[in-house]
């Protein structure tokens, strides 16, 4: 055996698994198809989208709030080329960081498409073809944007999130298919830069996996920056003619409509990526959605092969993959780590941001669980008024009898960072009153969480 552990895929699941394996003393190798490490997250996902979201947010502030703040500028202009260039810099800094971490942990990096020759041998087709043997193997090949069978993604006018991060111009009218996280984040980027954005969503609300209150509030905010929403609409066709894209859709009463734009972003979700991995050759089972089938230990049907991240069941989130990477590595040495899947937070990096952890109100109603709900609006928050970020609210759902916090849903400035405190509280099974009785620095956005907890406890918010 050349290695004790071989990790296939260097996204946040794969590289974290490799580092943890190395920390635990395994001789570890990592295989990456692309020339840069980091997978979707670092190259064409979380990080570049956040870079563009931040840039576009600055522009939005320059054109919308500076004046009120007392900053006079003649005219803010978008240098889109520079924006994309800065984004690329951020990406390369990050991927370089991963390379450094691999070196530091003495993990051998192999560039090329990894595929199973047999259960212990991985062939790497890069500049040359070589093969390495490993005692244990972790599949972390992630996911790719999904599309619909009748949509031809030409990557020029009909694009996925990958291309949306590399456009040469700001669209005039961006039509987005799918009102989920990815579509709304990228839509926000271009809406702030001046594009008209239309979102066609099959379900009756955007971000349908999150609490309904969040959907409603976010929709309000996005309409405010120029979004049009076509909810409950099923896309029936996408046609490209020169520079024009026409998206046709019908509503639930089968009335047809069409939207013309210059770009169409297909963001209906992502699918597990196992192409060329040779799983059929060694008989690894896939589930009905093409994901690698794993048991609760994240082990495949072959004893020494595990799979983590987007390629297995569960939320397609970088931080979920990271937890799974650590989880698998630690199990290999006989440790018994846990992952509380219901306490993995979900975040939407729009502005206002949306973040949540635990159960939604709808889920608890469905379970007939008696709950108490406390809400607190950003409007009533001194900190929010000071920075003119008064959109949003915090919603705390607690058990009606024990007061245990069951769900935390935040829409508003800095929600993404605030949710960590919610995860902490819930990991320790805090009650709403527990949080309400903890000192929160003033003035901060987190005060809204404390106030919402007070409201959930006995409807005794102080500042409402």
């Amino acid at each position, binding site marked *: 055996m050349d290695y004790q552990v071989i990790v296939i895929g260097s996204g946040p699941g794969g590289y974290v698994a490799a580092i943890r394996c190395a920390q635990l003393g395994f001789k570890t190798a990592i295989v990456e198809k692309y020339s840069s490490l980091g997978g979707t997250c670092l190259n064409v996902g979380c990080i570049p989208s956040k870079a563009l979201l931040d840039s576009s947010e600055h522009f939005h502030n320059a054109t919308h709030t500076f004046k009120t703040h007392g900053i006079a500028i003649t005219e803010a202009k978008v240098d889109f080329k520079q924006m994309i260039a800065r984004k690329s810099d951020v990406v390369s800094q990050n991927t370089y960081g991963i390379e450094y971490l691999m070196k530091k942990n003495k993990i051998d990096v192999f560039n090329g498409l990894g595929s199973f020759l047999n*259960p212990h041998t991985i062939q790497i087709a890069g500049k040359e073809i070589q093969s390495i043997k490993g005692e244990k193997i972790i599949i972390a090949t992630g996911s790719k944007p999904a599309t619909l069978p009748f949509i031809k993604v030409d990557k020029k006018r009909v694009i996925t999130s990958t291309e949306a991060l590399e456009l040469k111009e700001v669209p005039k009218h961006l039509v987005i298919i799918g009102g989920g996280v990815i579509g709304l984040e990228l839509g926000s980027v271009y809406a702030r830069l001046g594009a008209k954005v239309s979102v066609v969503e099959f379900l009756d609300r955007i971000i349908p996996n999150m609490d309904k209150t969040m959907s409603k509030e976010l929709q309000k905010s996005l309409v405010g920056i120029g979004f049009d929403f076509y909810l409950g609409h099923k896309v029936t066709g996408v046609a490209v003619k020169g520079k024009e894209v026409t998206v046709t859709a019908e509503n639930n009463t089968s009335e047809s409509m069409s939207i013309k734009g210059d770009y169409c972003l297909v963001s209906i979700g992502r699918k597990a990526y196992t192409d060329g991995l040779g799983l059929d050759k060694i008989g690894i089972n896939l589930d009905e959605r093409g994901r690698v089938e794993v048991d609760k230990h994240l082990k495949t049907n072959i*004893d020494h092969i595990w799979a983590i991240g987007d390629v297995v069941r569960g939320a397609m989130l970088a931080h979920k993959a990271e937890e799974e990477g650590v989880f698998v590595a630690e199990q290999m040495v006989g440790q*018994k780590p*846990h992952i509380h899947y219901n306490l993995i937070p979900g975040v939407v990096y729009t502005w206002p941001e949306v973040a949540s952890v635990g159960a939604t109100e709808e889920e608890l109603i469905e379970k007939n669980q008696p709950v108490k709900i406390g809400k607190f609006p950003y409007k009533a928050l001194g900190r929010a008024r000071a920075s003119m970020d008064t959109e949003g609210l915090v919603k705390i759902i607690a*058990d*009606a009898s*024990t007061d245990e916090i069951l769900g935390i849903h935040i829409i508003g400035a800095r929600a993404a960072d605030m949710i960590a405190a919610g995860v902490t509280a819930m990991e320790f*099974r805090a009650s709403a009153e527990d949080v309400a009785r903890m000192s929160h620095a003033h003035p901060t956005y987190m005060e809204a969480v404390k106030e919402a907890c007070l409201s959930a*406890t006995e409807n005794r918010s102080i500042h409402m």
Partner: protein
Amino acid sequence: MSLEMKVPSVGESISEVIVSQWMKNEGDFVEMDEVICELESDKATFEVSAEIEGVLRLKVGVGDTVEIGGLLCVIEPKGEKKEVIAPELKSEKVVGGAVKIIQMHVPTVGESINEVTISNWNKSSGDLVVLDEVIAEIESDKATFELTAEATGELEILASDGTTLLIGDLICQIAVTDEVDSKSLVDKAAEPEEISVPLASQGYAASHAAPAAAKILAEKGILATSVQGSGVGGRITKEDALNAKLQKEDVSLKDIEESVITDSTKKGDDSDRSEKRQKMSPLRKTVAKRLVSVKNETAMLTTFNEVNMQPIMELRKKYKESFKAKYEVGLGFMSFFTKACCVALKDWPAINAKIDDDEVIYSNFCDVSIAVSAPKGLVVPVIRNAETLSFEQIEKEVVRLATKARENKLSIPEMSGGTFTITNGGIFGSMLSTPIINAPQSAILGMHNIVQRPVVKDGEIVIRPIMYVALSYDHRIIDGRESVSFLVRLKELLEDPSRLLLGV
């Protein structure tokens, strides 16, 4: 004014009695002159009647030894109870359902038993329990007992499953509620709008392990519910987890998912190399200790013989139906062996004797212990005065004791004493064995399976159903002549059962 009832003087030279039975339970209403209790002295049994009517409060339990004049129970006259409780009921509203806390301690369960293990809680903390309801099963090294609730109310468990406690240790407490209040307690819980503030030690988060603590506990194979958390609301901190010790691994291992420990030297092999650690039950520990001490402290050896079982088998075949029809019990081999042993023991009394310090005690009766494989381990109930019993009585006694053994219901008296033991490894297929003496007895007979063997009879090889028998004995008081002769005598009796009838 409540009345204290004491043990009456029951006869000269009787200084103490044992409570053999309570006809009434704690909290029962008793009429005047109603028999409430049965007492046993070493001479006779007495009944005790209620001196006034009222609510009974027991002060001693069944099996307790009480001196003459000692307190038996208290009877609270009717009406008084309400007056006492009423003011407390008011305060109950404040503390959330509890009137007062009854603390339950490990009861005295028998002589020479000083510790017990909680084998199973039937109820959980926070459950409403009713007076006399069985709430837990307790195991000592001799038997299993049921623990019943001493009051009606909300249970709080203070010693978890698998905990070993000394007699008198605190085991649980019950926050007493009366019926009306227990109902309102339930109603309250069903109302979604109201918030009940749980007691610190039994709240929803009790035994909730913090993330790092959960991992440590899982690796130690400890169930979080068996750990007393020191954090807020009973939460288990990392420190709690680091300090936690395994208490009852058999449960935890079953419940906690199996770890994936792969042996890096093995490839693609799915053989299970995991191990399971299980704490020895008190019974197992006692058995182990006693067997080793017998091996070490006696001069034990074994002699063998073989028995032609054909005559007994023919006899059984002949009378099986009529015996069963008449006595409603099957005619087995045990009655023949027990009867034969009793006769042989009379002939060779040393086999029936035991050493007490530097004296030898010869028993003029045969209390024959029979080894029974019970779910919790080996037990040896005793057939008393087997020499006086008929075949039918022996068979019935064997069935009765074996059934109780399998249900873990043998009482300590039923297992105490015994002058000689019979063990039958044959039922599991043993051909030959050297059994270990059941101390302080001096000998044990091992029965084995019956196999068709070629034997020589009158100079010819014939096939006979043969059982090898073994007698392990303590050479300190039994000589070879006696042990071998005992076994030969046994052989004679079994091969010609009509000798049992004639006593020759």
